[in-house]
């Protein structure tokens, strides 16, 4: 057997939503093929810090463990990403784990992403199909367009784009790139397009589309490779047309 290898982690911790953050270092035994989550699980199993003192286990969020739910996002070595796909073998040590501070910190690495779900409600990121009578089957979507829309539908509301955006912060009420791109997705759907104007009006409101400053950090950071800045530019074009429709009048209500 080879000698004992260890992993060093520096975790930014916070005991309560309103308490001051502090750093705590951990040294845990190495196993092959570990990810950040299995390292955190190791700390949970044996909550002892690098100084050998007993401490509380680190809190974090997780769910799917295969990068489709977005819950386990955190800032790993300076970049926001999912901890499930952050492999220990590919990370420089000591591994620094911080919460995504753009969101309110609940405890340690766990944040409250409610604002993103509120934004999805605000922009009506769904397709209304319920009625008082049977609406029948919806129109078909061309396969090429379905494939195109599938890319936009990969968004898992993980919050990485909001964390990377310089215009999403406590000084502004910008809803961020993710919910904007969802407007493009649902407006592209044949049935969803019936509520196109409503969604555009929503993102033409305060904290909406116009707050984008084109730093394009979102598209660089998105773990799903969603063309967020293309979505924003496409929506800018739609909003320009909608603006003229609203002012000069149009039968396309």
């Amino acid at each position, binding site marked *: 057997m080879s000698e004992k290898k260890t992993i060093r982690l520096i975790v930014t911790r916070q005991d309560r939503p309103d308490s001051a953050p502090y750093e705590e270092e951990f040294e845990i035994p190495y196993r092959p093929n570990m990810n950040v989550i299995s390292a955190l699980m190791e700390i949970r199993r044996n909550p002892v810090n690098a100084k050998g003192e007993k401490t509380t286990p680190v809190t974090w969020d997780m769910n799917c463990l295969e990068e489709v739910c977005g819950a386990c996002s955190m800032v790993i070595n300076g970049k926001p990403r999912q901890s499930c796909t952050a492999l220990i073998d590919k990370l420089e040590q000591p591994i620094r784990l911080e919460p995504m501070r753009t969101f309110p910190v609940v405890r340690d690495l766990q944040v409250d992403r409610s604002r993103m779900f509120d934004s999805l409600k605000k922009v009506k990121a769904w397709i209304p199909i319920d009625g008082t009578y049977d609406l029948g089957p919806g129109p078909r979507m061309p396969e090429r367009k379905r494939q195109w829309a599938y890319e936009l539908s990969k968004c898992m509301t993980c919050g990485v784009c909001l964390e990377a955006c310089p*215009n999403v912060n406590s000084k502004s009420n910008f809803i961020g790139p993710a919910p904007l791109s969802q407007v493009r997705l649902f407006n592209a759907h044949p049935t969803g397009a019936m509520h196109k104007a409503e969604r555009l009006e929503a993102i033409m409101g305060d904290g909406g589309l116009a707050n984008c*400053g084109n730093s394009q950090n979102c598209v660089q950071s998105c773990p799903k490779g969603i063309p967020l800045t*293309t979505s924003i*530019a496409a929506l*800018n074009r739609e909003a320009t047309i909608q603006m003229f429709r609203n002012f000069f009048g149009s039968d396309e209500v």
Partner: protein
Amino acid sequence: MAGNREFFYRRLHSLLGVIPVGIFLTQHLVVNYFATRGPEAFNRAASFMVNLPFRYFLEIFIIFLPLLFHAIYGLYIAFTAQNNVSRYGYFRNWMFMLQRLTGVITLIFVTWHVWETRVRAALGVEVNYDMMANIVDNPFMLGFYIVGIVSTVFHFANGLWSFCVSWGLTVTPRSQQIFTYVTMAIFVALSIVGIRAILAFA
């Protein structure tokens, strides 16, 4: 829609930066370029501009009011950003930060420049070649003017790029890339025009 003016203000800010402020800037730099043909050529061009009909109307509605709105709202935009180039050192993020930085530098420079030339002209001083030659006789002021001109031209050229995105003209990454080259070429070209003109006074 009441009390929901942000979209309108942002779009107005973007539009005014190009029309009329950007167009005025280009025209101003071109007229200044007459200085490279000697003091007489510059004085003739300057007096042509000064004696334009409806001068005060043009000044107020083409220059001062749009500039004032663009400057004040732009300052608000600049200070609501939380720059993070150290963590995300991507090209566009640098341009995002530089756009805000040059905006603030340009505001300081233009305020000083308006005070030194237009306000003094209103107080009875004649705007001519000698006035500028006296200003840039001081090497510190020459440096200040060069920094001011380059920063203003950068802010205009890069602003033209974001104007194209903000109005939905350039949607694809490819078109945005090409427009980066186009607007940076405009930055270089107008910088040469501006710097050669100011050096003609020195």
